[in-house]
Each structure stands twice: as C-alpha cells, then as structure tokens.
C-alpha cells in the first residue's frame, strides 16, 4: 500500500465508524430531545435511564433465557427490544411518582418553569440509580455479546487491490435499528394526533387545556417515550460496548450536546446532532490522540454554537 492509500483507508474507516456510532448517539439524543428538547424538562438522569436499559436487556438475555430460546445471534436483539417496554413503564412511573411534581401544568406559570426543582430532583434520581445499580449489579464490566460484533462486512477494495472499509456487523445492525426507530418516532411526533398533542402541550400548557388535552398526561407520555428511546439506544450500544453502573455519566453530556446542536424541539435535529458528535469523535482520532476525543467534540460543539446558536434545525419562533 502506498502512503495516500493508507491515508484514504484510514479516513474512510473512521468515517464509517463515525456514521455507525453517530446513528446510535443520534437515537440516544432523540430520547432526550423528547424530554428536554420538546417538553423542556431538564433530566440529568437520562444517562442512567440508558444504563438501566442496558442492564434490563442484559438480564432479559441471560436471566430469562432469551439467549437459549433465540440463539446467540438473534437473542440479544430480542432482549433489547423487550427491554424497551420495561423502560417505557419505568419512565411512566418515575414521572407519575416524582417528576410530575415539578413539570407540566403545575409549573407552567412559575419562574424558570420548574427547572430548578427538576435539576435537583433528577440529579438525585441519577445518584440513586447509579449507587443502587452498583449495589445490585456490582461494578465489574458486563456486555451484551453477539457473534456479529466480531464479524465484519468488507466494502471494497476501491483502489486496485487496496483501500477497503470494514463494517462491524454488530454496529451496522445497531445503526440500522437506530435509524428505523428514529423514523418511526418522527412519524408519530409529526403526523399523529398523539404527537401533535405532545407538541401543543409543550408549546402552551394553558391553551392545551382549553383544547381538551390532559397536559399532565401528555408530559408523562413524552417522558416515558423519551426514556424508552434512550434505553433502546443503550441496549444497541451495549452489543459493542461493555458497561458498568456509571456508564450514564459518559453519555448524558453527549446527549445534551447533541440536542442543543440539533436545535431544541427538533427530533430530526437531535439525530443529526448525535450523528455530528459520532463523526467528530471518530474522525478526530485521525489527527489527535484518542484521549482528546471528547475535547474535540466540545471544541466543535462550541464552534457550531457560536456560528449557529439555534442549532441545525432550531426554530426561530418564540415559545409563549
């Protein structure tokens, strides 16, 4: 291989890795976009909801015998899919019991729309989930293993006999599922009656009441969907990423950056925000040492926010 061929292959490989990781980051961000971007609820426990999604998928896989039933290839994906409704219910209950006290109609007229209370409450929930998980699950790394994670598709060679891109099958599949999930959610939010009522409740809770919408229920539904989506992303990530009870901390910041990059209130924007972060993270390894990956992400984040404060898809319309 010649020097340019090596460079090109390195670049294409990083680009492919960025797109695949970016799709999963995108799904995570979309989950937070439901809660923070659309409903404007600050949730610092989002990363820990993702961690729970990972553990629930793991225990469904090994504990409930899904692995034996469906085999090692399909089993993990069945477990991840089954974990989603569990986390939907979890999100629903957490909102009903705790978060509802600091969101929705109750805080609509308050200064900061209840953000101060949300900040403290969700930080508290995050701590309880992290420490509780450490007690229950231990602190050693676990992963949702699938043989697909150690197999790859080869694309190429593009340049004579050289320059091929290898796509990890596990990551490829996870990215595909992520994109499908986002498209499904996007259709629900933009086209369905439910989606419209959620956006209306976020836009103007008081006027929504005058339309006959149960605003508290709308907030609860959005919260549950957001929790479920991020947990689904966690499960998909876990097929390639060993995890532990504190894994949420690494990702909650990425999620917030993705939502802000994409533009508050936009589902597709959050996806592109997450995608951007994945791409920057992977492409930066070409020129920077890996320890600086996260630094590169936030330097790019700052640059984009300076140039385009409303994010890629941000709306310029003021909220009431």
């Amino acid at each position, binding site marked *: 291989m010649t020097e340019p061929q090596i460079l090109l292959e390195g670049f294409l490989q990083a680009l492919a890795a960025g797109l695949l990781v970016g799709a999963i980051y995108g799904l995570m961000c979309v989950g937070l976009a439901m809660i923070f971007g659309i409903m404007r609820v600050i949730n610092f426990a989002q990363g820990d909801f993702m961690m729970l999604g990972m553990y629930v998928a793991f225990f469904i896989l090994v504990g409930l015998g899904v692995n034996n039933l469906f085999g090692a290839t399909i089993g993990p994906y069945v477990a991840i899919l089954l974990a989603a409704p569990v986390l939907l219910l979890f999100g629903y209950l957490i909102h009903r019991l705790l978060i509802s006290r600091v969101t929705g109609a109750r805080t609509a007229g308050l200064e900061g729309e209840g953000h101060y209370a949300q900040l403290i409450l969700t930080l508290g929930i995050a701590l309880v989930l992290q420490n509780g998980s450490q007690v229950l699950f231990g602190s050693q790394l676990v992963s949702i293993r699938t043989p697909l994670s150690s197999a790859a598709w080869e694309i190429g060679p593009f340049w004579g006999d050289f320059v091929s891109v290898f796509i990890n099958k596990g990551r490829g599949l996870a990215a595909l599922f992520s994109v499908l999930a986002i498209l499904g959610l996007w259709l629900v939010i933009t086209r369905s009656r439910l989606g*419209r*009522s959620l956006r*209306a409740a976020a836009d103007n809770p008081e006027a*929504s*009441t*005058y*339309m006959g919408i149960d605003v508290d229920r709308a907030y609860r539904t959005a919260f549950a969907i957001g929790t479920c989506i991020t947990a689904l992303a966690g499960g998909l990530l876990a097929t390639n990423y060993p995890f532990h009870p504190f894994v949420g901390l690494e990702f909650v910041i990425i999620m917030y950056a993705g939502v802000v990059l994409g533009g508050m209130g936009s589902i597709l924007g959050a996806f592109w925000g997450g995608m951007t972060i994945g791409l920057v993270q992977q492409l930066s390894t070409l020129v920077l040492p890996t320890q600086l990956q996260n630094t590169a992400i936030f330097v790019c984040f700052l640059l984009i926010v300076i140039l385009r404060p409303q994010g890629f898809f941000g709306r310029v319309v003021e*909220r009431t």
Partner: protein
Amino acid sequence: MLNVENLRAGYSSVPVLHDVSIEVGAGEFVSIVGPNGAGKTTLFKTLSGTVPAMSGSIRFDGHDLLAVPPHRRPHLGIAHVPEGRQVFPSLSVLENLEMGAYTEAGRRSWKENLKRIYSWLPVLAERAAQPAGTLSGGEQQMVAIGRGLASAPKLLMLDEPSMGLAPTVADFIFDRLMDIRRDAGLTILLVEQRVAEALQFADHGYVLETGRVVLAGDSRKLSADDRVRQAYLGM
C-alpha cells in the same frame, strides 16, 4: 345553557371574583364589559378551570362544571379563545386548527368544519402550512378563533379578541364574528374592553367592576344607561 351563581374565585386565597352571577341562554350573544382588573379574564379562567372556584356554582348544559376536571370541559362543548390569543407558535396554522378539533365533536365534523372556518377566515387557508408563531397579531387572533370553532362548540367564549390589534383589524374580526354567529347560530360569551362594539352586537350585557356585577340587562338599555355612557363610552 350556562348558569353561573354566586361565584367566588381567585388566586391562592385572594378572591378576585366576589359573588358573580351570570346567565347565557342557548343561541344568545352575551357581552361582559368592564375596566382592567375587573376580573373578566379570571371569570373565563374559572369557567375553564385553570383558576379554581372557591364557592358558588357553574352549570353548563346540564353538567355541574365544577365537578368536571379542566381538560374534560372542552369535550362538553366549551371553546375558550383565550386572552392574548395563545396560539401554538411552533405548530402550523392547520395543526393549530387540528388541535382545536381534539374534542370528540370536533373530530366528527372536522372536514365540514374546516371548510366553514376557511370560508369565514380565508387567510387561514392561505397560511395553513406556516408556523402560527410567525403570523401577525390579527392573523393569530383568527387562528385562535378558528381553533375554537374547530372543536364544534356549543358555547364560544372569546376573551378580548380585539386586544393589541389595530382598530381596522379589530373591526374586521368583529364583522367576522357576526358572520359566524349568523351562519352557525352559535352561543357566544364575549369579554371586551371595546364596550361600544361589545354592547352593539350583544343581546345581553353585564358590567363587571372589581369582581362584582354592577349592571346587567338588555344591551341596548345598557348602552343607553348614563353610568355606562359616562364611564365607558365617553359621552
């Protein structure tokens, strides 16, 4: 249709309304006029349930309204077009109207209703795809009225539809309201600071001052009343 008796309501423990009684019969156009701070908007919010009642009763179409949670009241046939328009800014004009049709009745008659709303307020058809937050004040007021009509209500409650609008725009909106009333035979309850217009179009009127009804009756008689003429009509 709507019967409010001895209503006392307000924020926390401070009452804004003291002992308010009003009545709106089916098909009537009733105006409530009065100065700033009289409690007109609070009365509407109490009817819709976003301000709690302290005592008294509200009956609507055979229901005890105070026993119905706020978000169920629109489904009984009450459309509240709130003060300051309060459109959903990030939703398109059409989506705003669709939100109006969130009630069972609104969904059933959505297609015919939309056609009628567009015929009364053609600008909404032109702007259907535009986010409501980007419209002018007058257009947003039309969105708010259209949204109220989309619920196929029995009672349309309008809170200061002329607020913040240029006089010609406000006149246009009042003309449309008269068209809508004539075509649809709707029962309308209007709160307004433009006292002359509010009484000119109404069957009955109430004058609300500092949370109490101080005058009530046939709107023509009210317009002729010396106190009303001096205080509100500048004569």
